[in-house]
């Protein structure tokens, strides 16, 4: 190799160029690292936000599921009390329990129709709706009658209540042993 004619200035310039290139590459690498870190941070934040959203949804579903199960249990107990009051021809208690029962059934239907609550059998939702309307109608008939006979007024309602009560027991039993994810409808 012939190095004739290369001055110190050339060597200095070459060194400066090499150092400059190195610094440029270092700068590029640094920028790339910063960009990668920012992307990772954003991804982590997104994951955290998603996790928070999921946690809120899960908690909501758990609360609604618990509410629905509680409501159904109350309905089953009220059906028992109302049936007894109707059989005993107890006018004031029958009316009171029929009103309460209808309200609970409407609430249960509203909860059951929410997409996040565990699905309950369609027949049961239908029975709840029918029983709610019939309970109010029977209460009205008892309240209107001059000589009220709850057992006569509730003649058509009783079989619906018996069927509903037994399907609630079945549902409660299944829910009791269902895995948490299944119980939440997930």
């Amino acid at each position, binding site marked *: 190799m012939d190095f004739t004619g290369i001055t110190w200035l050339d060597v200095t310039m070459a060194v400066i160029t090499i150092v400059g290139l190195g610094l440029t590459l270092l700068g590029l690498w640094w920028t790339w690292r910063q960009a990668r870190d920012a992307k990772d941070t954003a991804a982590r934040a997104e994951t955290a936000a998603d996790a928070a959203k999921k946690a809120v949804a899960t908690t909501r579903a758990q609360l609604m599921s618990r509410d629905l199960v509680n409501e159904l249990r109350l309905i089953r107990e009220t059906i028992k009390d109302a049936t007894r009051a109707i059989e005993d021809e107890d006018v004031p208690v029958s009316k009171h329990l029929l*009103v309460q029962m*209808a*309200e609970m059934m409407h609430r249960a239907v509203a909860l059951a129709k929410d997409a996040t609550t565990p699905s309950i059998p369609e027949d049961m939702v239908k029975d709840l709706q029918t029983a709610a309307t019939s309970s*109010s*109608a029977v*209460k*009205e008939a008892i*309240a*209107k*009658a*001059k000589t*009220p006979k709850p057992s006569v007024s509730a003649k058509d309602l009783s079989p619906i209540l018996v069927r509903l009560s037994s399907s609630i027991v079945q549902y409660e039993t299944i829910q009791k042993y269902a895995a948490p994810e299944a119980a939440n409808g997930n």
Partner: protein
Amino acid sequence: MAINLQGEEWLSLIQKLARLTSQGSLTWGEDEDAPASGMAFRVDLESGISYIVFPEDMDGRFPFVLVVAEDRSREVARFRTVSFAEGGPFDSEEEEASALLSNLYLNVARLVSGAPQLVQRLLADLDSLDRERPF
């Protein structure tokens, strides 16, 4: 303190309310202060008297209650429907007033829901099609 009105007085009052309602002279609306929405209805007159009707159990069904109030909210009298034989005969004015109030409540609920107005609009719409036919 609520004033006690006699059966015949309630009957006259409810008869008049029913007549004015069917004539369209009273503008009923939903009672916003009621605990359940879409169940209680009221009409406020310029005199300061208000009439409020609602089902006792807030379920849209008999028994019904009529409250007369002064200054929009001060209750002065209250009538609660009593049992009566459907279609009569009635043994008392209270029973007749109860039957009338039951009908009045259902009419008012229908009026406030806008059902009669909708039917009228639909019929007018169909009538206009009828007129457009050449023969």
